[in-house]
């Protein structure tokens, strides 16, 4: 009984890692440009495709090389590609609309997402079928009594923690971070004091997208099966998580991600017939937050300036 509870806890943490990584991207983008990038989930699935492709290439071209290095390289490539994708998407579908009605960027990014998804489906070999993520992490793991902790799970968990720490330092301790923060506080002012806003916007999108890439890569490692159309839902979940945590707050995004994961997992596990409508529960949580605390857990209160 209690063991099952622990296992469910582990499951939700695994899911939470992915959600929060995606959510951070949303929160960064919103912080700096006040836009919600609705194709973020497609960055994520794109990264899964990229990662899988390069891993396959490596495993076929140079078998017998230490797999750790291969994984690192593949992940790196996936991150870079996705990062650039993010930058391009910003240039094409967000920059032109900085001044215009917020409805417009919502739609432009949405359609950008659709385009990515469709391109994957049409031009990736057998893209409309479920794809296989090469099984690179050795099976097995640590057994603490009945409690099984898989190798890939350990890897994912550690890696996520590293990323969180990295993000913390990036935002708090580096020039890039401070500039990004400056821009998010006041776009005009930042550009006046001579921060090259466009450059930092691009940097932010690169970072956000590559975080999604990491999440996508983990998605591959964890589930090993993926399909072109799995991005949209992941994106919406990430967005929800960032809102629940408080749009604009990185730490909030992390909390939000895990909260969403907990709700879903335990709804599926402990509510009779809950697994079919687990998303209902998470979305209801989102709705409750939006109605009673729109600023989220850590977001600062929204007051419209006069």
């Amino acid at each position: 009984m209690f063991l099952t509870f622990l296992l469910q806890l582990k499951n939700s943490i695994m899911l939470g890692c992915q959600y929060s990584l995606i959510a951070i991207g949303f929160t960064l983008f919103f912080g700096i440009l006040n836009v919600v990038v609705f194709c973020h989930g497609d960055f994520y699935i794109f990264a899964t495709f990229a990662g899988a492709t390069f891993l396959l290439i490596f495993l076929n071209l140079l078998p017998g090389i230490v797999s750790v290095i291969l994984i690192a390289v593949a992940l790196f490539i996936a991150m870079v590609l996705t990062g650039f994708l993010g930058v391009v998407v910003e240039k094409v579908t967000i920059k032109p609309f900085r001044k215009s009605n917020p409805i417009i960027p919502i739609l432009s990014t949405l359609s950008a997402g659709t385009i990515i998804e469709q391109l994957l489906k049409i031009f990736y070999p057998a893209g409309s079928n479920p794809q296989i993520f090469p099984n690179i992490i050795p099976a097995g793991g640590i057994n603490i009594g009945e409690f099984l902790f898989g190798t890939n799970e350990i890897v994912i968990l550690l890696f996520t923690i590293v990323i969180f720490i990295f993000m913390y330092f990036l935002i708090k301790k580096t020039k890039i971070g401070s500039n990004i923060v400056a821009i998010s506080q006041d776009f005009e002012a930042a550009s006046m004091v001579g921060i090259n806003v466009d450059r930092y916007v691009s940097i932010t999108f690169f970072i956000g997208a590559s975080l999604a890439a990491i999440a996508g890569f983990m998605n591959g490692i964890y589930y090993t099966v993926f399909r072109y159309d799995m991005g949209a839902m992941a994106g919406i979940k990430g967005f929800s998580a960032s809102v629940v945590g408080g749009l604009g707050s990185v730490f909030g995004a992390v909390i939000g991600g895990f909260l969403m994961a907990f709700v879903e997992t335990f709804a599926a596990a402990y509510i009779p017939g809950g697994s079919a409508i687990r998303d209902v529960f998470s979305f209801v949580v989102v709705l409750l937050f939006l109605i009673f605390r729109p600023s989220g857990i850590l977001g600062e209160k929204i007051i419209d300036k006069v």
Partner: protein
Amino acid sequence: MIDFKKINNLTRRKDMKRRGFVMFLVVFLLTFSLLAFAGGQKEKVVKIAFIGPLTGPNAAQGMGARNSFELAIRQANASGEFPYKIEMLALDDASDPAVGANAANKAVSDPQVVAAAGHWNSPVARATIPIFHENGVALVIWGAIGVDLTDKYGKMYPEITRVCPKLDAENEFLADWLLTKQGYKTFYIIHDTSSYGKDCLTFMKIGIEKRGGKILGIDGVNVGEKDFMPLLTKVKEKNPQVLYYGGVVTEAALLRVQIVKAGLTNMLYTGISGLADQKFNEVAGSAAEGTVIVKPGDPKEVKGWPAFVKAYKDAKFNEPMGAYGQYAYDAAGVILAALKKVGPDRKKLVSAIRNIKYKGLLGTYTFDDTGQTTLVSMTLLVSQDGKWVKWEDSEYASGKRKLPR
């Protein structure tokens, strides 16, 4: 008629240019009207409609079936037994009832169409059956296995017949094998929330309980779900002997992989034709080993099979045949046989198809009073070394390997 002079005067500048434009407009108008109203006047052809998911999630199944169907038509034309040219009118239902309804309307509104074969998804069939009934066009279902399609609609409407076995037969067979032959006792059922999954649940449940098996739990998952760990952790606690999944390949494979991850190694994983696709073995990889499924009538049995496969290859289609190609092929065969008997007449064809006795690829087709084919044969497959192997010649049957218990 419109006086262009006036219009010219209206538009203030008095050069010839504008007159030119207006004339251009008229010319363009006339040409295209001609272009539009011409057409239709061709040689005498008879069309048979094929409807299936040519796009969307099940496009692979749909295209394979479409090609097989076309193959049958080509052969018929080549045989020269028909005094007219037979054409296939291939329509897409995109697995969406509304689109399917459009397609059905398109089919029935084309006077040259004499009969139709249709649908891989039961919901789409439910949407189109009334349309075919209203217009008195025979519909031979080649791939949709929802039970009510014949049990309910087939009983009411003489237009509806089905050449593929319905879903309950498969579950019945599987349940019988699991309980009486293999003696499994405790089961856990997971199904997707599509109507396919729900029917799977219904009939597997019946099959198990009828034989005194014990169902430890039932859970639904949405199509497109990828995280089954919470569910499996729950299952592990219940510790059943068999996990039955009522659904289709992608989720089935994801589930299979996570079963291994969750350490449920001493549990049999099983399902029906929804899993019957090589893709499952590819995607689930090593985890797939030892999965047992039931699939209607393994065509490789019948002796016409090699010829059929060869013909399909020679036809140089881009897509593989899919799991339901042979049924589409026989659906075409049934329609053509009836056509040969009564000629291109919608009304006559309806009854002709119902009462046909046709020797097809998979066997001899006759239809009962619900329009369901009486031709039923089931094969049991087990995943062995990344392939679906017939149970009889598998190492599991020979005892070389053991099924988990």
